[in-house]
Structures are given as structure tokens and as C-alpha cells.
């Protein structure tokens, strides 16, 4: 039996399967309520954007999430819209380093 080449077996998108679901949140902004928003909050909490002790997140795009999105967009060099635009969603879905983005105290700019 001829087995398919390894490269043809893998059908995973070029983004993480877990984070792939964030695609459905495209264009969501403050006040919206979309199933799966709580997972995005978990993502932001993990990477240092939602420093909330209560991790029982809801699916509402609330003020805290908006602040997290703005901070994320600033930290990742994206246009700051406060919304889940395509650039932001695409960056969120990209594979990344597991270090938190908010373990820093000193932001320094080039002279």
C-alpha cells in the first residue's frame, strides 16, 4: 500500500487549530456578544493583557477586553483600532513564543 507523503497528510491550517476559532470573532467590537469571546479573553489573560484574577470569562466584548485589544495592538505594532480587525485576528492566530508580553517594566525606544 502506498502511504501518502507526510506533507500531504497534514491538513492543519498555518495557524494553531485552537486559535483558528478566533476567526469567527472578526470585526467584533465593544458591546458585541459572540460565542468564543471567552476563549479570546483566556488568550489575552495568558499573554498578559487581561490581568484579572477571576478567569470565569463571558462572551461579551466589554471595556476590559477593549483595553486589552488596544494594548495588544500597541505592543504588536498593529494599527490601534480597539476592534478585532483582520490584522489583529491574523496576528492573534499566528504561532508565537509562550512568554507573556507583559512581563516587562522598561519600554525603551531607539535614540
Amino acid at each position, binding site marked *: 500500500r502506498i502511504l501518502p*507523503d*507526510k*506533507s500531504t497528510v*497534514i491538513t*492543519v*491550517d*498555518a*495557524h*494553531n*487549530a*485552537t*486559535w483558528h476559532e478566533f476567526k469567527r470573532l472578526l470585526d467584533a467590537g465593544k458591546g458585541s456578544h459572540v460565542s468564543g469571546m471567552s476563549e479570546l479573553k483566556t488568550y489575552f489573560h495568558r499573554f498578559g493583557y487581561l490581568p484579572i484574577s477571576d478567569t470565569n470569562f463571558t462572551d461579551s466584548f466589554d471595556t476590559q477586553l477593549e483595553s486589552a485589544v488596544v494594548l495588544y495592538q*500597541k*505592543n*504588536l*505594532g498593529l494599527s490601534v483600532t480597539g476592534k478585532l480587525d483582520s490584522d489583529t485576528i491574523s*496576528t492573534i492566530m*499566528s*504561532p*508565537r*513564543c*509562550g*512568554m507573556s*508580553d507583559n*512581563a*516587562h*517594566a*522598561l*519600554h*525603551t525606544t*531607539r535614540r
Partner: protein
Amino acid sequence: FVYFNGKPRWLHTTPMTLTYAFSPDNMIDYMSISEIRSVFKRAFSRWASVIPVNFTETENYLSANIRIGFYRGDHGDGEPFDGVLGVLAHAFSPENGRLHLDAAETWTVDFNSVKSKVAVDLESVATHEIGHVLGLAHTSVKEAVMYPSLSPRTKKVDLKIDDVEGVQALYGSNPNFKFSSLLESENSSNHA
């Protein structure tokens, strides 16, 4: 560039030598150890070319300053890996020295021979994580090595001005390093 809280750095005497070793029990089997050693040697040498720090491989894993390994899922440091893509690797700030890569990734050094859509360039991730080991946190400069995300089948191994200025502010400059060469290479890549 950005530093961790408290701006931690390695405090060895100058000229500084940091040793690194690979975990004898936590490696991947589809890349040879010599291939992995070459990848990390190149990654360390990039940082060593800009700061007065030497990196030397040692066989003694437990006593090495920097300890490198490939791990799956929950591996005991409170930062479990998540399978294919997602989180690729993580490292700890100075002077912890742990550098962990997600064993579930399709690591490669050659995209011509590995056709998987989810293949990840080991050298790019190694170079990024060494930056953390040295004391750099994530930058917002997309072109820089210390930017937090990396798409599959993408190579980003050359240090950019943001990376160099950040690490040199911690350790000083390698006397043989010339900023002009970096500017020239950035300009030529921008034109390309």
C-alpha cells in the same frame, strides 16, 4: 526593545562566557543531534557577534548556564505546551537559563526538504529564545527577532537594530561589532 521587570541580566565577569547544554532526555528524534547543535551554535554566535559574551557548549547539562530541551504538554514549569503551532517555545529571564521548545512542532532547518505547512524554523525560534535568556522581552518591532510571533515556514534569524541596541544596553558592545554593517544589511534587505 523591552526588558523584563528589574532589567535582569547575567552578572558574570567580563569577558563573559556562558555555557549551554542539551537535555540528555528531552530531544527530538527526527533531527540529528549534530544538526540541532549546529543550529544553536549559529543562533548563539549571532548574539555573541554583537555583545562581549562567549557561548560554549558543555556536556554537563545540570551545571550549564543555559539548558535546552524539547518538551510536550505539561512539563513541570507551569507553562504547558499546546501541541502543533500555538505556542512554539519559551525561555526564562536571566539568570534562570531554561530554554524549552515544544516537541510537538515540526521543527526544521530546511524548508526545501520538509514540505509540511506547519514546519517551523528551529534557528529562528532558537535565536528568539536566546534573546529572552539574555534579558530581552518582546518588542513591537515586527522585523526584529524579539517580535513575539513567527509564521510557519518563515525564517527570521538576523538580528535587527532593535535587537542589537537592546542587548548591547545590557552587556555592552562586542569590540569587533560595527553598527554600519548592520545598517547596510538592513538597508539592502529593505530595498530587496
